[in-house]
Every structure is written in structure tokens, then in C-alpha cells.
């Protein structure tokens, strides 16, 4: 890393430390006897891309599903924009969750709807009825962001794997979220398409100044997108640091992710 680059990193860090957008304190979650999350402590700063690494089944998806309320936590505190979500009223909770985008591992596209309808769904659901022209311009903008303008009248089944991921991204971006949660955004894609998606994540970060959690096994994706990496093992955060730090970790198990 050159000196210039690392000084930029430091500047970024100072700016980021000003505000923590998501914070988890002693988070615990079990499914019956399966203790998935044992004691998770982490925070995401504004504008930061946080990559989470970990083996399959360690509860990475459960972790980010807690943030949007798809999974209820058993114990611990979850703060979003500095507010403890267990203390919020329903209305405030809805307002906060509007600002969080979730890109599902499988894309979670609505098969029975066209591309356009897939994008209309979150719009009408979150914002109520909005004028047709406004809706249309938002849809076109979201599709242009991910380079999918031509597919507007297709159905999801007509799209390739990479296109499906991009449509999933467009569907989350259309609400201009401040926090983005990516669940294995490049899994199942070829290396070239994976790289495109990784670049797209960076573009989104720049354009909308989003703070993101990116779950991935794809070390190339982690290298490209991460400002910081956290490794999860046995339900706790086993290590954290920059890509360069962890790559040279003394722990051979952690190093094994980077091989």
C-alpha cells in the first residue's frame, strides 16, 4: 500500500468514527438447542463497507436478519442510528427499517411479477401511492444504476444469475437506503460477473453514501469492497481488521480464508 493511499484510509476512518449507524452489544440468538450467535459485538460506521467472513451455517444470515427484524434476538442490544430498537414504538421501527436495504442471497425476486412490478412493489408498499411519472422515473433510475434498463418488461425467470442479483440490488436501491445488507452477493456467479457485482457495491457506496454489511465467501469480493473485515466463528467475532491485517494473521484458521 502506498503512503498516499494509507493516508486516505486514515482520513476516512476519522470521518467514519463520527457516527456509528449500527451497533450490536452482546447479541445472542439460539434456535432451540442450536446456539447460533453466542456473543456478538460489532459496529458499523457511516459510509463504511464491513465484510463478514465465516463458514457456512455460522449464523451470518441470522445476524443481518436481526437488523431488519426477520429474526428476533434473544438477548443483547441492537442500536440503529443510535436508537435501541427494543425501546422503539412500532411506527418508529417502521421508519427506521425503511432506511435499511436487504439484498437476499437468492435475490428473492417475485417470480409472478415482471421486472417493473418487482420494483413497484417496495415503492408502493413503503411510500404509499405516488404519481405514475415519479414512479416511472424512480424505476428507470434504479435500473440504470445497475445497468438493467432493457429488461424492464421481462420476468425474473428470463434473467441470468448476474442479472437477477442486479435486479435484487435495484429493488433495494429504489428506496435509497442508508444501510445496505448484502447476503452473499456473489455466491453462485462466475468470477467476471462476481467482479461486476463487487464494483456495483462500491458504486452504490459512493453514490448513495451507504453503510454496508457484506457477507461473502468470495475473497476477491472482500478484497475489493471491504473497508474492514470481521471473521465470525462459533457465534462470536473471532477477528477483525483490514484485509491486509487479516491476510497476515498469526492464526492459520483465519489465514485459510485468504488462500
Amino acid at each position, binding site marked *: 500500500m502506498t503512503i498516499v493511499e494509507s493516508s486516505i484510509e486514515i482520513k476516512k476512518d476519522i470521518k467514519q468514527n463520527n457516527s456509528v449507524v449500527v451497533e450490536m452489544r452482546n447479541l445472542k440468538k439460539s434456535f432451540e438447542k442450536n446456539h447460533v450467535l453466542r456473543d456478538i459485538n460489532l459496529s458499523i460506521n457511516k459510509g463504511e463497507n464491513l465484510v463478514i467472513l465465516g463458514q457456512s451455517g455460522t449464523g451470518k444470515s441470522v445476524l443481518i436478519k436481526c437488523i431488519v427484524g426477520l429474526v428476533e434476538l434473544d438477548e443483547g442490544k441492537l442500536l440503529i442510528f443510535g436508537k435501541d430498537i427494543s425501546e422503539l414504538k412500532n411506527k418508529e421501527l417502521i421508519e427506521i427499517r425503511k432506511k435499511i436495504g*436487504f439484498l*437476499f442471497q437468492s435475490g428473492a425476486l417475485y417470480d409472478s411479477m415482471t421486472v417493473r412490478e418487482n420494483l413497484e412493489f417496495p415503492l408502493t408498499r413503503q411510500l404509499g401511492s405516488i404519481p405514475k411519472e415519479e414512479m416511472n422515473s424512480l424505476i428507470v433510475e434504479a435500473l440504470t444504476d445497475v445497468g438493467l434498463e432493457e429488461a424492464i418488461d421481462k420476468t425474473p425467470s428470463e434473467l441470468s444469475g448476474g442479472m437477477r442479483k442486479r435486479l435484487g440490488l435495484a429493488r433495494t436501491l429504489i428506496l435509497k437506503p442508508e444501510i445496505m445488507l448484502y447476503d452473499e452477493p456473489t455466491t453462485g456467479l462466475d468470477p467476471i460477473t462476481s467482479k461486476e457485482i463487487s464494483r456495483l457495491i462500491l458504486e452504490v457506496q459512493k453514490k448513495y453514501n451507504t453503510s454496508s454489511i457484506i457477507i461473502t465467501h468470495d475473497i476477491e469480493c472482500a478484497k475489493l469492497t471491504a473497508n474492514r473485515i470481521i471473521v465470525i466463528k462459533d457465534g462470536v467475532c473471532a477477528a477483525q481488521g483490514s484485509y491486509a491485517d487479516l491476510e497476515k494473521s498469526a492464526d492459520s484458521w483465519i489465514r485459510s480464508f485468504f488462500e
Partner: protein
Amino acid sequence: MEKTITQKPDSKKQNLKIDSENDDESISKSLLKKFFIEVSSLTIFTLRFFREVLKPPYEFNELVKQSFLIGYKSLPLVAITGFIIGLVLTIQSRPTLAKFGAESWLPAMVAVSIIREIGPVITALIFAGKVGSGIGAELASMNVTEQIDAMQVSHTNPFKYLVVTRVISATVMLPLLVIFADAVGLFGSFIGVNLKGNVSAYLFFSQVFQSLEFKDLFPAIIKTFFFGFAIGLIGSYKGYNSNKGTEGVGKAANTAVVFGSLMIFIIDMIAVQITSLFQS
């Protein structure tokens, strides 16, 4: 049991017998446990339906769309089966009635059996096969591919949006389909009567309507609401609570049909008891 096949039968016969007895017992115990878990979670699901159906917001657009899809898609199948049943029933009944010299009773007899029993039950079975399995498979695949989670993140109650709309649609559309099937069945019967002999449409239908009473029609239609409700509810339950794997989709579709069909007969039996109670 597979275990007995893989082991040598002579040397360990005694042990095996005890083993398999224990196994049988534990299997029947776990089956029983499974059954009660299933019944209780279906009950919870049903109660949730009644709670959510009353609470706003109402997913009116989706309800209309689902009703259209559910009704419209089953229409051709219901028409064909209704016609064939009416035709075949007439052809099959003629010789028996002829034996007693009661051929003129043919339209009346066929009408009563179609409207009281065969129309509702056959249509409901077809509905279970087409719509029940369709709902099961659709919701299960939405579950597997995280579409249900995605809806929830989009500030939509997936139970209301997916389950409530489908259950109501099935409940409302099946009775309409049954009335349609009855009508087509009577037409089939009219054709059947005219294959041998010559009965005018006027005569045929006036005989049909003379033989039918309100007490035939009313319970027959009422029970189809329950058929439709059961099919929609079981399909939704199986799909919504399916395993998060691709095999879960097939299983949901399959069990939705099996349980749905079984429920039709159970409801039919209960309905017959209740109506005979009122008629005696």
C-alpha cells in the same frame, strides 16, 4: 423394515425381534407426536387467519387478482369433468331405472345426485388437485427463495398478502365453480338422455327443477364454502410452513392435495349428518 434385510436373519433373530418391536413402538410414538404437533400448528395457523382477516389493512387488489386466477384457471377442467360426469351418470343409470320401468325418472334422479353430492365433491377434489397443490407449491417456493422474507422487509405482512387472500379466494370461488359444474353436468345429462330417446330441453329441465327442492340446493352449496376454505387453508399452511429446501416445494404440493382431499370427505360426512338432523 430395512434393518432386518441388511442383517443375517438366523443368527440375530431374537435380538432383532426385540429391536424391531422397540422400533415399532418408538416409530408409532413419534408418528403420534408428529400428528399432534401438526394438528396444533394447523390450529394456530387457522386462528392466525381469523385474527388477520379482520384486521386492516386489507389486501383488496391481491384478493381480486387471486380470485380471478383461482376461478378462471380451474374453469375448463371443471367444465369438462362436470359434463362427463353428467353424461356418464345418465348412461349408467338408465338400465337400472328401465328395469323398474322408471326411465322417465332419469332426469330427476341424475339431477338430485349431481346437485346434492357428486357435483360438489368431484369439483372440490379437482379444485384440491389444481388450486390446493398450486397454492402449496407457490408459497413453498416463495419461502425457499426468501420472497416471503423480502415482502416482510418491504413492510408488507406476508400472511395477509399471501395467505389471507388465497384462503378467501378459494372459499368464494369454489361454490361458484360448483354451481357452474352442476349446470354443465345437467347439460351433459340432457345429452345422455337424448342418446337413447327423445326428450326436449324444456321437458328435461322442468323435470329437473320439479325434483329439486330448496333443501337439496342450500346445504349442498353451504358445504362447498367449507370445502374451499379447507383447501385454501391447507394449501397455504403447507406452503407457508414448508422446509427451506427445494424438496420442500414438492412435498408441500403433495401433502396439500392429500390432506385437502381427505378434509373434503370428512367435511362431507359431517355435512350429511347435520343436514339429516334438520330434515328429520
